[in-house]
Every structure is written in C-alpha cells, then in structure tokens.
C-alpha cells in the first residue's frame, strides 16, 4: 500500500451559485482497489465524478492521476489517459445498434494506438472487437441482442453498455456512477460478478452507489460525503459504525439495522 496512488484528489471545491456542492474534498485511490463513495442524495457524489473527469471545471483543488495533474483538462483528454466514467443516466447512442455504440470509443486515439489502424490489431476490425467486449460484459454473442438498436434495449443492458463503453478504451480506472441503480435484484446479482471480474483484471474502480450491500461486497474502502463535505473514510465496517454516518446518511439507527439485515 505504500506505492503511489493511482488517483489523488486534493481540496476539490465547487459551487453552483450559492450552493457549495463540494467543499475541500480530498481522497486517494490505490491501484487495483475498489473504492466506494456513498452519501445521501445531493451530497455531491456525481459532481465529484464530473469534476475528476473534466465535465465540470473545479473552482479550486487538484486532481492527480498516476502522479500527473489532470485538473480541469478536457473530458476527452482525460478519457484518453485511461480514466473513464459511466453516466448515472445512461447515455448510449440510441439510433445505433448496441455493438456500433462501441465503435465510437474504439475510434478514440487511445484505442487506436492500442489496437492499430483497423481497431483490433490482429483480432479483426472494430465490429469484431466490439462484439468481443459486449460478450465479456454479458451480451450473448450468438443472440440478436448486440445487434439491436440501443433504443430498444432494457435498462440492464444499457448499464452494461455504459461499462462496455469504458472497457473499449482499455481503461486503468473506471468511475462508476450508480451502475446498480434502476436494476432488478436478479440483474444486480449478475452485475456483481462482472465488477469483481473487472477488479481481477487489474482495473481500479471508484463506485458511487446507493445499494450498500452490493457495494460492500466488492469495495475495500468507502468514503462518505454529506452536503459536499467528506464525512469520513475507512473500511465498510468502520464507516458504518460511525455515528455521524448513521445520522447523516441513514437518518436513524433503525434504518441502518435494516440495511445490514436486508
């Protein structure tokens, strides 16, 4: 654990008009870790991801990725460094078939450098590569699903497509913005092994999540945000034992017990 963290955020500040969405948020993520970010609605979780990936400019603060400063760089620049993100509200290209959705990230400078001019190097063209990635993420290869328009896919597949778009860039770090939200219990159950597999492949994950049970299965460290401020950080057990977290995040002790039992 004494090696340099893959992602470091120092004193991130962001305000929208009078609302302080982020106040002096600092944390660091180690290589290969699954890092959870939790907090009540409106606590600045998504804003934090937007700031790290350059979609929103921070007012002040620093983001270091692999030791290099990437604060307020453009989103496409950051994505090309291997730091990718998913969107909470899925953003597929609705008018394209699922597998063609992946051709866009495969066309990026990063993917082209890694995959050669045709996209997949020895593996074939970009269409072949995207079908491979989709299979990896849970689209059945021999079914019609990868060829269906994204607009006709159910939420579960769209969430997977979000992850697949990140994977197409062959990332080192993925920021997942609520990949479990809006999914049925069985869909979540099939997503968790995927996340574990990504971790085993050596990809560092930062996960914003409301579904604590699933998050705690995979995450080794958790940070709690409340009203844009970092409340605490630690292992899932430490965090949940914290009185302030119980108050801020769950409102009452009763709810907390429920969460653990459920």
């Amino acid at each position, binding site marked *: 654990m004494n090696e340099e963290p893959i992602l470091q955020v120092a004193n991130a500040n962001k305000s929208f008009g009078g609302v302080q969405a982020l106040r002096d948020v600092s944390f660091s993520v180690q290589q290969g870790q699954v890092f959870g970010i939790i907090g009540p609605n409106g606590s600045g979780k998504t804003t934090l991801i937007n700031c790290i*990936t350059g*979609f929103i400019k921070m007012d002040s603060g620093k983001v270091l990725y692999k030791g290099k400063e990437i604060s307020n760089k453009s989103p496409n620049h950051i994505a090309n460094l291997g730091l990718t993100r998913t969107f909470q509200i899925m953003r597929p290209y609705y008018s394209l078939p699922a597998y063609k959705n992946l051709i866009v990230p495969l066309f990026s400078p990063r993917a082209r450098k890694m995959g050669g001019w045709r996209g997949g190097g020895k593996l074939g063209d970009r269409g072949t590569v995207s079908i491979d990635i989709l299979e990896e993420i849970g689209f059945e290869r021999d079914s019609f699903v990868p060829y269906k328009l994204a607009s006709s896919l159910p939420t579960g597949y769209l969430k997977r497509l979000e992850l697949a778009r990140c994977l197409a860039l062959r990332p080192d770090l993925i920021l997942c913005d609520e990949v479990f939200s809006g999914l049925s219990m069985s869909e979540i159950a099939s997503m968790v092994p995927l996340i574990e597999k990504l971790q085993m492949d050596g990809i560092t994950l930062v996960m914003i999540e409301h579904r604590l049970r699933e998050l705690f299965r995979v995450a080794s460290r958790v940070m709690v945000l409340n009203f844009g401020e970092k409340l605490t950080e630690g292992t899932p057990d430490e965090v949940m034992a914290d009185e302030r977290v119980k108050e801020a995040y769950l409102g009452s002790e009763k709810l907390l017990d429920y969460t653990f039992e459920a």
Partner: protein
Amino acid sequence: METTDKRKERLDRGIKVRTEGIYAISSWEEMSYLLLPRLVLIVGLLLLPLLMPSLYWNRVISIVGIYALLALGFDFLAHFVGLVSLGGAFFVGVGGYTAAILNKSLGLPPLLSIPIATIVGATVCTLLLLPALPLRGVYFAIVTLMYPLVFLRIIEALNILGGTDGILGVASFPSTWMEQYLILFIVIIALFGLRRLVNEDIGLVFRGVKDNDQAVRASGLSITLYKAIAVFITSALGCLGGAYFVHIYMVAGISLFALDYSVIPIAATVIGGGGTLVGPLLGCFILVPISELLRAFGTLRIVFYSVILLAFIMFRSEGIMVYAQRKYHQFERWVKV
C-alpha cells in the same frame, strides 16, 4: 367502425431481410432488389439533360444540381451530426467569390478554379464557424444565418470584390453538355460518398455526436474536432456549388449570399425526407423546377410555393423518400387486436 378492433401491422419484406447482409447476394432477384432503385436514380439523373426541351431547362438542371449539393450537405449536417445549418448562402458565397477571384486574377480555367475554390472556401468557412461549434440546435442555426448577411454588408459597404456590381466576366464552361453532366456526376458521387461515409466508423462517430455528445467526450473523442470535420464536408459541398454557379453565370455578385441557398435546401429536405440523403436530392429535383414553372405567376409564385410546402408538411410530413422506402421494404396488413 370496423377499423377500431384492427390495427395496421408493418413487417419487413422477406427480401429486405435477406438482402440486409452483404453476403446475402445469391440470386438475381435479391441483387435487383438492391440495385434497381439505385440504377433508376443514376440512369434517371443521367438521362435528364437529354430529355430537356430547351437550353433554358438545361440550365435549370445545373441549378438543381447545385441546390442538390447544398441539400445533401444540410441533411448530412442536420441528421447525422446534429448541427442545423442555415449557412447554405454563406458556403455558396465564399466558394463563388473564391472561384471568381481565382479565375479573374490568376487566370485559372473552371476545371482548376472549382476544386481549388472548394478546398480553400471550405477551409475558410470551417475556420469562421469554429467559434460556433460548441453551440447546439437553434443557436448554431442563428450564427450560420448571420454569416452570409455579414459578408453581404461588408462587400456592399467597403465596395470590395466589385461591390454591388460583382466580379464580371468569369470564364464559362466549354459546353452546356459538360456543364450539366459534370454537376450530375458530382451530385451522384456526393450522394453515394456521403451514404458510405455515415456508415463507416468515422460516420458512426458523427452520429454519436448527434445522439449524445457527452458520451462521445467520455469516449475520448473531441467533439469539436469531429464537428469541424463535418462542417468542412458540408461547406466543401456548398463551396463547390457556389464555384459552379459562378462559372455558369459568369459573374460573382452579392446575390450569391441570397437566403435562397439557405432556405430551399431545407425545404427540399422536408419534402424529400430528412436523414435519407437521397430524399433531399429528389426534393430539389421537385422544388426547383416547380419554382421555375411558377415563374409565369410573377410574385404570386411564392404563395403557390408555400401552399405546396404546407401540403407536404400536413399530409406527408415524413417526406417522400421515408414513405417510399417504407413501402419498398415493408408490407402492411390489418390484424385483429
């Protein structure tokens, strides 16, 4: 009513499904299913100059070709990149004046001045539109609408580039046959080239920008770069049209910045069916000759023109080509609910 308990079901024709993959070509029937519409279009376009009765109508064909290039560019930019451009007049003006200057001061023949004006003009247009690229929807449209007006006033006020008289005595084409067939070939190449482009990998990026530009940025691609490439393609088509126009009429005047070049391509896209690329082309071949036929009515022709447009928007708002493609690819039947 008997239709209340029935609904219309649309299914793809079997032959459409069979011909969707490129490996499915195995019989004459399937090959002709794919080739016939394209052949009809190409042969029809190439026969047009031979069928026209007079020199006047031959000239109309060239003008229609120019409008078709503008409409293709508009459809590409609006339906595949998501930028609604009202800048047809801007592209025509820049391309036209560039060609006129190249021809008059450097003495280049049309066959050289037109391609050079296309590239130079498109570069100029793209550079000038760069600041507007982050804009979306109607805001981009407003900026592109502003440019031709600005250029027109600058030329008028500073009396440069021939002022209101324009640049006279530009060289014309050696023959009317060449004039017509060259533009028809260019239109056909532009049509099939663009259709190919939007299905290539880079075309998918363009369509991605239209569908969801934030996701494109998250995918590590600069949307400004790809929008600029798309604007370059469209303005190249427009500048080509403008340069052609100048060499047909042998004059480059401020009328090149007339709003007709912005508006008629859009009307043609509405009539022909947006997002099909071939639709706007057909729309031009319908609209422009109609406007010529209506010339006899003088200024009243605008009224007739509007009525035709209105009727299309009311009764066939999807456009001719979308309708025709549906009828060609799918069959309909009534099924009991």
